[in-house]
């Protein structure tokens, strides 16, 4: 059956919104995605009919809520082909997941003289936690540079990895759209005895993820970018690494015993889930995983390749030299996130004009300031597409860009 984007759009109530007599054109899914009715209903039904805390109570409703919460974990594990459900830890968001790795694994393993390798295309969430820890532990951070077309420059990767204990990198750039060769990078890290930490925020919602095939050690990703609710993120880690790590946050749920002279940790995954967890959000996330699985991640990736091809071609043919698109033109190594500069119009001003026709894009540094400095720019306009976007919306973006150009070119 062919991919029916119009039918999918009907699953997302917000996409039918009309503001000032004009339809919503939502092109900011790399920032956060919209939610299907299945997710909205799952959360609403749970709260209306079945809400209860998990784990701690013996009554039937609590047992049911626990089943739903743990069921969501099992769904996520299957979605990324994890070996065990207890290798998936729920966090507040992906940022917290990366902080968890840096804090818990990093503080136990990184000391003066050690090296952590990052790349020039990382989100602040995969930079600042390491910088914070480096300030305390005195290790060195190295950076993989980029090629002119926005791919990782792997020429000196072996040199950069020499002596490294961890290589933490994004699977897909949130600015350039570049899809990195994750399995190859993981293998290189392992050759040098480093663990491989993957920021999957931009990749997991958009393509098939198989952590066993990738060979990775950790994968951080967020629910709200994959049609799930905000307030919950995920860290997947190899069981033996998670077992060996000290806990992250202390409190209820993460202990097996507390005495006056100390505590012992709970087993995985509770060890890393201190306090009351985002139960309602987990229920929504479980529904989101079901939804994406039903659509099919291969189908979503193909749809995004098609719309990216159309967008790159249309933007180039309509605006020629007036538009500078960052990143690769090769849709086999890029996702549906397109950052660009348009004429000399500042991205804020572009997005303000676009907003007149409800074309929602991100304008700014995208929480990747080191990369922006490399691009020689303070800000870009970023249009990002997902399973529900259409070629017609690409045209709406282009029409709005024309209007912005007319307005600011006097």
């Amino acid at each position, binding site marked *: 059956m062919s991919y029916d984007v119009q039918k999918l759009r009907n699953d997302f109530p917000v996409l039918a919104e009309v503001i000032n007599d004009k339809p919503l054109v939502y092109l900011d899914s790399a920032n956060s995605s919209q939610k299907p009715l299945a997710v909205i209903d799952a959360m609403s039904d749970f709260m209306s009919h079945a809400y209860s805390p998990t784990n701690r109570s013996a009554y039937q409703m609590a047992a049911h809520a626990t089943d739903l919460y743990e069921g969501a974990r099992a769904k996520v594990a299957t979605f990324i082909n994890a070996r065990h459900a207890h290798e998936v830890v729920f966090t507040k968001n992906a940022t917290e997941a990366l902080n968890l790795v840096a804090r818990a694994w990093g503080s136990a393993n990184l000391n003066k003289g050690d090296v952590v390798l990052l790349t020039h295309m990382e989100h602040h969430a995969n930079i600042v936690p390491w910088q914070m820890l480096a300030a305390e532990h005195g290790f060195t951070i190295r950076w993989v540079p980029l090629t002119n077309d926005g791919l990782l420059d792997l020429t000196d990767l072996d040199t950069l990895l020499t002596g490294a204990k961890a290589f933490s990198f994004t699977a897909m750039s949130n600015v350039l759209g570049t899809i990195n060769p994750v399995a190859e990078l993981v293998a290189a890290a392992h050759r040098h005895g480093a663990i491989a930490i993957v920021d999957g925020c931009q990749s997991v919602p958009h393509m098939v993820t198989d952590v066993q095939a990738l060979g990775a050690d950790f994968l951080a990703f967020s629910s709200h970018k994959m049609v799930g609710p905000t307030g919950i993120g995920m860290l997947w880690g190899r069981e033996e690494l998670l077992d060996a790590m000290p806990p992250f946050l202390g409190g209820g749920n993460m202990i097996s015993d507390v005495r006056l002279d100390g505590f012992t940790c709970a087993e995985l995954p509770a060890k890393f889930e201190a306090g009351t967890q985002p139960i309602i959000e987990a229920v929504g996330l479980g529904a989101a995983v079901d939804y994406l699985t039903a659509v099919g991640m291969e189908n979503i990736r193909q749809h995004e390749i098609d719309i990216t091809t159309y967008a790159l071609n249309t933007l180039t043919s309509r605006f020629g030299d007036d538009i500078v698109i960052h990143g690769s033109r090769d849709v086999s190594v890029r996702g549906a996130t397109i950052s660009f500069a348009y004429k000399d119009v*500042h991205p*804020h*001003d572009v997005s*303000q004009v676009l907003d007149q026709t409800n074309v929602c894009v991100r304008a700014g540094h995208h929480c990747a*300031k080191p990369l922006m400095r490399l691009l020689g720019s*303070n800000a870009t306009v970023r249009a990002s597409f997902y399973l529900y976007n259409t070629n017609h919306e690409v045209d709406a973006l282009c029409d709005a860009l024309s209007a912005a150009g007319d307005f*600011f070119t006097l």
Partner: protein
Amino acid sequence: MPGLEDLYREIILDHYKSPRNRGSLEPPAVRAEGHNPLCGDEIEVFISVENDIVADIKISGQGCSISQSSGSMMSAAIKGKPIAEVRALISRFKHMMSIEEGEQPDTSAPLGDLEALQGVVKFPVRIKCAVLSWNTLAEALDIAAE
């Protein structure tokens, strides 16, 4: 919904395309730096203060039309003015942007070109663009007073 013409008045676009007092000043002139962490806009304000008067001002940096034109208009409005008057204007401008609490400052003097920025209030996300240069100027005045 307010239209684009409420925000981008002609005089704003004029200051954006031909910014006044663009550049930098050498020490002993004072330099202050302002960042808008949400959008990456950066601005540098240089002032030289002589006898409690802002004798010269230069502005550099990158930003959107609102932040750049606001800085340009600000520089034109305060150059050669006594510090007390400049501080009063900062307060008045921030009142106009509805981000300063407290007593309404004296509004008898004409605002000139700055009046054009009044429309920004209808676009709350852009208020921080308009006040970036003003906050940076206030910081420069504080440094100069040290």
